[in-house]
């Protein structure tokens, strides 16, 4: 790949770069912890949506069970912390490894199912896990506390134990994690694996006839996605210092994550982030500011956005933005594998 950055791409990267800069400087300006908290929430959603996108955006399958992976990560790192004092920094990787095993184990038989059946099966597996945790007080002597959830013991300012008294360190950590996921997605998209996944998504038979072991690549994507999602779960546990099956493994979370990925634009690096930046504040506002008087409003908004996205912007919100930038740079055909594509019609989501 040439090192020379073409004008089109430079312009496309300008806005995200500016946003990143603003985000990095934000804590210096924003003193109100609540706003910082909202930002952490948005960035966390963006992280999860991006991790989800690694498998779902590029394989064309819809997973509605990713919350389970998030929950596995959170629970394992927390349980290791509480029971043997293992630092969550280490525990999170162990949790992620378990989640990866689970993801691959479930993915292996599931990938042969087509679209809606795959989605329903992911719901089934995730719900089975959630229900089990919900109803289990302890297992093998380890307390799970069922629906009550687990509180992460307060240790005060202890960076080594992944705990900070201020929100600011968490803020920078989640930014770093988000950048890692985006970098992984970016790298993957342009690599052989990215091409192969898109080929499998477009036509599995043709892809296999070209030497692509579809099972291997689909499971690799699944493993990557599971690992990263679970790391997010551990972050959540450390930030909120509380996890329970409903919030961390529930269908609501899975749906939200998928929604952000879809509305923002699956199969792109910026799409899920965009989706998160749009939907999370909308959710926060309708949940928080309206004081819970209009219960369910944020879901109505989510539903509306989803319907509009499917009908009018099936490739996600990122699509018109990309078009805008390409037209802006004289309609230049970009290099393959990046933003260089002419859409003459709106294909299916």
């Amino acid at each position, binding site marked *: *790949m040439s090192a020379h950055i073409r004008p089109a791409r430079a312009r496309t990267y300008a806005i995200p770069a500016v946003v990143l800069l603003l985000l990095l400087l934000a804590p210096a300006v924003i003193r109100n912890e609540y706003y910082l908290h909202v930002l952490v929430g948005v960035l966390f959603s963006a992280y999860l949506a991006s991790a989800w996108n690694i498998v779902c955006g590029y394989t064309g399958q819809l997973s509605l069970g990713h919350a389970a992976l998030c929950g596995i990560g959170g629970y394992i790192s927390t349980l290791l912390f509480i029971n043997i004092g293992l630092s969550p920094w280490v525990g999170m990787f162990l949790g992620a490894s378990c989640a990866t095993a689970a993801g691959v184990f479930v993915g292996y038989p599931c990938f042969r199912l087509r679209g809606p059946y795959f989605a329903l099966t992911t719901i089934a597996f995730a719900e089975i896990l959630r229900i089990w945790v919900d109803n289990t007080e302890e297992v093998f002597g380890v307390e799970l506390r069922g629906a009550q959830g687990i509180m992460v013991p307060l240790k005060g300012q202890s960076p080594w134990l992944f705990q900070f008294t201020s929100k600011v360190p968490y803020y920078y950590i989640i930014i770093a994690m988000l950048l890692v996921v985006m970098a992984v997605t970016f790298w993957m998209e*342009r*690599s*052989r694996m990215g*091409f*192969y996944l*898109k*080929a499998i998504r*477009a*036509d599995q*038979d*043709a*892809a*296999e*006839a*070209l*030497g*692509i*072991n*579809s099972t291997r690549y689909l499971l690799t994507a699944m493993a990557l996605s599971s690992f990263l999602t679970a790391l997010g779960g551990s972050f959540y546990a450390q930030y909120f210092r509380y996890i329970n099956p409903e919030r961390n493994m529930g269908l609501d979370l899975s749906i939200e994550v998928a929604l952000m990925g879809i509305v923002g634009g699956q199969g792109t690096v910026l799409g899920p982030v965009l989706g998160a930046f749009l939907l999370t504040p909308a959710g926060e506002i309708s949940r928080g500011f309206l004081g819970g008087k209009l219960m369910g409003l944020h879901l109505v908004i989510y539903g509306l956005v989803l319907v509009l996205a499917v009908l009018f912007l099936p490739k996600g919100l990122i699509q018109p933005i990309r078009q805008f930038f390409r037209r802006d740079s004289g309609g230049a*055909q970009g290099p*393959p*594998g990046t933003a*260089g*594509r*002419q*859409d*003459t019609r709106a*294909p299916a989501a």
Partner: protein
Amino acid sequence: MALLEVQGINKAFGGLQAVKDLSFTLMPGEILGIIGPNGAGKTTAFNVIAGFFPPDSGTIRFKGENITGLRPWDISHRKIARTFQLSKPFGDLSVLENVMVGGFHHQGSRAAARRKAEEVLQFVGMAHQAFIEAHNLTATDRKRLELARCLATAPDLLLLDEVVAGATPAEAADMMDLIRRIRDGGVTILMVEHVMRVVMGLSHRVLVLHHGVTIATGEPRAVSRDPTVLKAYLGVQHVQPGNP
């Protein structure tokens, strides 16, 4: 040494024996045409050889190695490429990206895959369409794209499934020319075809299937005069001796 040895392939679907006792060998550099009336079992035979599904019995040896029942990707890695009767382009990828998927076959470098893809597109005459999204291509161009994708994997054996179906005579002539050039580049070709002019004009040998059974093999001219063959087709009229 024979490149491809097919022995005793049988394949049935439910009660229907689609392919019965198919055997033939293919020498390097040959073009073998498989023809037969509709329902003769050509595509089934083709799909068995390509690893799309396993035969009920029989063996397929490629360069001496038994490849019967291998999965499609393993067959592809042994340098056998195939096209599909109903084209399967990667619709939302550009023409260049489509061929790059093939280009990654032996190595993982994007730059190398791209170079290979550009080379192949030049060879098949689609370089000017490199950035068009595949679902916008015409039917014939899609077939050409499939061919290009196959070539990017640098195969030794190319399996073509009705690659001139639906082409105009001019397009068919172009395709024939392309196939000849591919063969001249060292690729052995096995083609299933309906269009007599093309298959008779290109093939060194022809194999005729009828109801799954091989009823004739040999040089095109001889086969086209074979009374059994003529009977099977109920009057084959438009065979031209030699190249069109």
